């Protein structure tokens, strides 16, 4: 290429970001091949470090990482370890070189705040700084950047995922999806080598361990199970080595942050050296300016690492059991994460699975590659793949006595829905306090609290006679909605569980203030317009469906569909009222139509599939089903959208 001419109408390129504990990477996929973009440090890897100079602008990358040694409190590394965790959870960790702000209120305890010399920053802001840097590198090289898929450890809970989303919002990114790191790696390998069968991904990173079992077939990546530990990783090994160094050098309890940072750095250095050679040594500061040599062999390191590896074996076995599989069912193992470069880890994994792990893709880049490919697939510019993911942790309700009733157990495929019934426990009880929790421990207090809400004004009745129906819905983005309904009184309550841990919406809005383009009423008007367009499209589709598949409806169902259609048409023709009211009325009427056509849609899908499955390709089936949906019009629009790359962003 002679000239890289900027085409203002160039379609936006979706990107994938591996926001790692130690290093971060941004990549994109073009013509079925993923490529890493050059970061501000000049290579593919951007150290996940941010340096906050006094009175200056934050600096990201290699320089920030170097500053960790001279000004440990001004430079934040491994911020990902702190994402979505609260002060009390992390303040006891050893070799922590950051200065944490002591929370001044219960509210402030929900989030970790670093003191970087008179300034306070949260891990969310640190992560946003890294994302912003990667985004701007991508813009330099791709001109028009579309949505982004960001990877997270499979075992991240809701708080940690939400913190990641918040960071992306702060950096001005449009998140297409958060993708689990091991799944991303499987996508990268699966697409490159057209893998079929059952695969395990063993992901030992800097701060977290995950294992995921997937089955790959017909372009569908189905996660069977996932399991992990958010506090097990290379950092633990570093700390174990550093502890040995401490004992050896006799520093006692009076280690300064500078000394701790240095010892940790040397520990990491030694670990890396031992990936290359059988024996190695590093220099530690001794008493009165002297130097001490500290040596270690691969075998000694192996012994130090062994308890951590045994912990990973238990987690592997649990994941296989959840997937109803044996070690021998696994066709291949994919290694992910910097810590899997250690010879002891590789040996352990190949012995456990009796197989040499796959290794054709650079382990540093494989996660970002998978994210880039999934971003392209979601934006409609990449390969035709579908990823079916599962819930990483159980979702449930607190019961009387502080136990947990698991409504959606871990490893349930998403999207997912489930119901449960609760009854009153005291006579004349007129309300329920509902507490939604996430986790696999038996006590609600040991799980992550996601939301509390209440349902009041129930008729007084003897205990056990009031029945509360609770429904959980998790959508394809992993967002949970909980609905509670009491039949006899018709009372209901609903919460959208979209927790923003630590950072309130106002705080984020404040941080985003300049990004706001529209006033509230503008937004409202636009929303009504969208609703109208929606309603017209869906009416069209329903009418078409009635022409072709009305026979799948019972007489009374047909009546209901007609009524719902009529209600929506009347509303569209009526003069517009106040935008807000008009919008919600349209929404309600549309919802009603969706509700009465739901079962019908399923029957129509089945008819289309069984009619089409006789010896034709999946693409043909998809076409057939689209016909059945009566959505040719939409499809046309979709195609046009695809060509210009202007897929409408998902409404959040």
């Amino acid at each position, binding site marked *: 290429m002679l000239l890289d001419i900027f085409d203002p109408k160039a379609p936006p390129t979706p990107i994938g970001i591996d926001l790692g504990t130690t290093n971060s990477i941004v990549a994109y996929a073009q013509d079925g091949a993923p490529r890493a973009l050059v970061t501000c440090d000049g290579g593919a890897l951007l150290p996940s470090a941010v340096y906050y100079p006094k009175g200056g602008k934050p600096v990201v990358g290699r320089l920030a990482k170097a500053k960790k040694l001279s000004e440990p409190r001004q430079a934040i590394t491994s911020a990902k370890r702190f994402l979505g965790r609260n002060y009390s959870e992390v303040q006891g960790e050893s070799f922590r070189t950051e200065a944490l702000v002591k929370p001044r209120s219960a509210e402030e305890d929900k989030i970790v705040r670093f003191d970087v010399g008179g300034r306070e920053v949260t891990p969310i802001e640190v992560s946003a700084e890294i994302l912003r840097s990667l985004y701007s590198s991508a813009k330099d090289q791709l001109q028009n950047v579309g949505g982004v898929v960001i990877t997270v450890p499979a075992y991240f809970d809701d708080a940690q995922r939400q913190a990641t989303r918040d960071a992306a919002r702060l950096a001005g990114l449009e998140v297409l999806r958060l993708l689990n790191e091991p799944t991303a790696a499987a996508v990268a390998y699966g697409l490159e080598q057209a893998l079929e069968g059952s695969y395990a991904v063993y992901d030992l990173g800097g701060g977290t361990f995950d294992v995921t079992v997937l089955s790959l*077939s017909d372009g569908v990546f189905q996660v069977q199970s996932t399991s992990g530990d958010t506090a097990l990783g290379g950092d633990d090994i570093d700390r174990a080595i550093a502890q040995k160094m401490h004992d050896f050098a006799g520093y006692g309890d009076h280690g300064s942050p500078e000394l701790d940072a240095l010892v940790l750095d040397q520990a990491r250095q030694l670990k890396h050296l031992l990936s290359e050679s059988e024996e190695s040594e590093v220099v530690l500061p001794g008493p009165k300016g002297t130097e001490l040599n500290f040596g270690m062999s691969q075998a000694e390191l192996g012994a130090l690492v062994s308890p951590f590896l045994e912990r990973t074996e238990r987690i592997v076995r649990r994941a296989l059991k959840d997937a109803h599989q044996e070690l021998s069912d696994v066709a291949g193992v994919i290694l992910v994460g910097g810590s899997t470069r250690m010879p002891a880890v590789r040996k352990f994994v190949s012995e456990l699975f009796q197989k040499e792990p796959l290794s054709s893709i650079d382990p540093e880049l494989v996660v970002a590659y998978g994210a880039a490919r999934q971003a392209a697939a979601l934006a409609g510019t990449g390969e035709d793949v*579908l990823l079916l993911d599962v819930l990483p942790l159980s979702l449930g309700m607190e019961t009387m006595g502080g136990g947990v009733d698991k409504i959606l157990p871990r490893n349930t495929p998403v*999207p997912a829905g489930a119901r449960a019934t609760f009854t009153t426990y005291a006579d004349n009880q007129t309300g329920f306090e509902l507490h939604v929790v996430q986790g696999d421990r038996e006590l609600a207090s040991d799980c992550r609290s996601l939301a509390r809400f209440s349902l009041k004004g129930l008729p007084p009745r003897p205990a056990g006679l009031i029945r509360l129906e609770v429904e959980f819905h998790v959508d394809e983005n992993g967002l949970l909605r909980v609905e509670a309904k009491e039949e006899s009184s018709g009372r209901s309550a609903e919460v959208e569980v979209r927790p923003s841990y630590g950072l309130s919406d106002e705080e984020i809005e404040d941080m985003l203030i300049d990004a706001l383009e529209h006033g509230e009423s503008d937004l409202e008007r636009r929303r009504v317009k969208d609703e109208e367009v*929606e309603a017209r*499209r869906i009416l069209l589709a329903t009418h078409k469906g009635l022409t072709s598949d009305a026979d799948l409806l019972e007489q009374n169902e047909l009546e209901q569909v007609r009524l719902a259609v009529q209600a929506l048409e009347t509303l569209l023709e009526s003069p517009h009222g106040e935008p807000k009211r008009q919008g919600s009325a349209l929404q309600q009427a549309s919802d009603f139509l*969706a509700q009465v056509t739901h079962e019908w849609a399923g029957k129509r899908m089945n008819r289309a599939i069984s009619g089409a499955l006789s010896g034709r390709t999946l693409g043909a089936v998809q076409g057939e089903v689209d016909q059945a949906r009566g959505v040719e019009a*939409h499809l046309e*629009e*979709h195609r046009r959208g695809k060509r210009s790359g202007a897929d409408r962003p998902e*409404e959040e």
Partner: protein
Amino acid sequence: MNDPFQILGLPARFDLDPQELDAQHRQRSLVAHPDRLRGRPALERRQALSLAMTINEAHRALRDPISRARALLEVRGHSHADLPEKQLDPEHLMLTLERRENLREARSEKDQKRLAELLAEVRTEKASVIEVLRAAFEDSGKLSEAGLAQVAKALSELRYAERFLDEAEAVDF
């Protein structure tokens, strides 16, 4: 609940081929998963979302033999009330208690061999209970009273076997 067999386009039988079950689930997901409908109207996506949930729920129900048997009873026109009260067979209860005791001992003595024997024994039993269920559902149509009693007994034994296996497989010396 909706009929999971119908949702996944499978014959209402007890012995389903797990691979076919997965394949049907994949086919339907390829059509109904909201990720396949990006750029389409939100209402259509919502509908796809709830369809995808139903498909996932049906897959879950049919994958597990206990809920598959329950779904099958419903399809055949039985209600929950049709199943006779589960009466614990005293013999089976004794056996279960004995096994628990055995498991406890194997665990405290870190006896690998004994644990493996126990696991093998209960796995064999589980397979034979599943065979009983398969036979009970062999003929189509409603089940006889005797058939229902057999199913109820098998389901209760299967539950015990699964709970035991859950516990025994989690043992870690």
